[in-house]
């Protein structure tokens, strides 16, 4: 079976992508990028962001809680320093962008009109920033507005990365579709709080976002709920550790699958997951993705 898959007119060599924020800009492992469908970059903002003070990560049963807070070099350094090097990557490149005002998203996608950028992921779901982030992601109106503003400034595929924190992602997914999105990513981290021994918030950002295997049942629920609710494809994300997890998300209706926290335990995880998924499909003699995608809702 052919492992490649199309989304918004782009061909991905595999449905497996490295998620935003857990593979930086892909340059440290550029040599294995050909094993992947693509990489989603760390979130980029207009200005450089320092992020939250340490500690930025805590463990929880079956996962982690992070409060990185969108530390990133900012648009100018990204364009001047990283983007030229990203040419080395032998997979699709999706740039994750985040704004603290709706107009910032539009400015970001416009100024990132570079041939090596294949698509954008609009991060309206970061739990670790004061402005924007989940505040946008929890409002269908804001999601639609941001998507529409970006749609006007770029022809490249727009993937809106949703949250399920205190909002039904099926609603915001419909809003993204109405705004002109080509796909939605389901989902970003879940709100979480970790306390230190003194009963005070442990993370430098006070609260954080939960990710990793413990998030998988909820993410799978959300993908299974969102996929039939919209006419555009779903990119799944949440707790994928291996090929079987990836297959589960495709079964639940996703077209692509991202690997996030698993890369912290093993930076080779995205490539490994892609290989394991291929083995999975071969072992089951699947003929094409339709044999797998959406099985949770199929009668036979």
């Amino acid at each position: 079976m052919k492992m490649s898959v199309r989304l918004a007119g782009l061909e991905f060599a595999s449905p497996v992508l490295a998620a935003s924020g857990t593979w930086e800009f892909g340059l440290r492992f550029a040599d294995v990028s050909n094993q992947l469908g693509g990489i989603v970059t760390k979130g980029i903002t207009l200005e450089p962001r320092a992020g939250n003070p340490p500690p930025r990560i805590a463990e929880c049963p079956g996962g982690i809680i992070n409060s990185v807070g969108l530390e990133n070099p900012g648009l100018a350094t990204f364009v001047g320093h990283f983007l030229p090097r990203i040419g080395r990557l032998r997979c699709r490149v999706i740039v994750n962008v985040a704004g603290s005002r709706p107009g910032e998203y539009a400015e970001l996608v416009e100024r990132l009109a570079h041939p090596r950028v294949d698509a954008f992921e609009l991060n309206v779901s970061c739990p670790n920033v004061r402005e924007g982030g989940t505040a946008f992601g929890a409002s269908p109106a804001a999601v639609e507005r941001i998507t529409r503003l970006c749609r006007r400034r770029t022809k490249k595929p727009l993937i809106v990365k949703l949250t399920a924190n205190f909002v039904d992602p099926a609603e915001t997914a419909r809003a993204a579709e109405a705004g002109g999105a080509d796909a939605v990513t389901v989902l970003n981290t879940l709100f979480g709080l970790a306390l230190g021994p003194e009963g005070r918030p442990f993370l430098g950002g006070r609260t954080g976002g939960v990710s990793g295997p413990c998030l998988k049942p909820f993410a799978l629920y959300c993908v299974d709920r969102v996929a039939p609710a919209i006419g555009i494809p779903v990119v799944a994300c949440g707790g994928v550790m291996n090929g079987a997890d990836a297959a589960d998300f495709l079964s639940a209706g996703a077209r692509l699958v991202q690997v996030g926290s698993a890369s912290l335990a093993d930076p080779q995880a995205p490539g490994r997951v892609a290989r394991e998924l291929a083995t999975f499909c071969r072992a089951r003699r699947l003929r094409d993705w339709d044999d797998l995608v959406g099985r949770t809702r199929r009668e036979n």
Partner: protein
Amino acid sequence: MRPVAYPVLARRRLCPDVFLIELDAPGLAQRVKPGQFLNIRVGDGPDPLLRRPLSVCDADEGRVRLAFRVVGRGTALLARTRTGDRLDVLGPLGRPAPAPRNRNVLLVGGGIGIAPLLFTARRLATGNRVHAVLGARTREQLILRREFRALGTKPILTTDDGSLGFPGPVIEPAADAAAKLDRPLVFTCGPKPMLRALVRRLDPVPVWGFIEERMGCGTGICYCCALPRKGGGWVRFCADGPVVLLNEVAW
């Protein structure tokens, strides 16, 4: 950079809560440099998710040694390793510490922070004059004394309870030692308060510290490690360290 499972040749207890694990890892032993660390998988389910970073305590003749203190769940799991098991290791990670030639090197280690300095001492012993001040809470906790002596360094020892060597912290003996040396290059590892006090006391002597704060990936991709830099910003110490010039850190 791929994880490799190395056979465990031995596991010893150095003191009640500190263990030493010896790996059969010829390639790694040759490649790894002082200051670098290994990121070790503990447990084998999805929990705990993160690896545990450990500095290389020693490496020679195809063997790599790690010494660690049991402080929580991950290190407790690691302490259960048995000879013959395999340890899933990612590394070597981080930048090697500066490797001087023909200098006076002063190593200042506190507690489990003594561990990575042994490997540093071994590699700097030829071509430099290596001095060491090693401290711990008690005589029992003052690990690796014999190994340091075997390298020809005659470490000055201190204990908080006075059960061996100078009574009290390493700071004053370290300052005395530094004062006697020409342009000393100081490497230190130990608890944060010790590192802070040492830098202040030795000021303006440059002090290279082995940072053992919490990290996520160890490979520079998650932005979860952040050491405040004087004048703003962070040092991503997993990739730009873990050995950093402490004088530039705003702790």
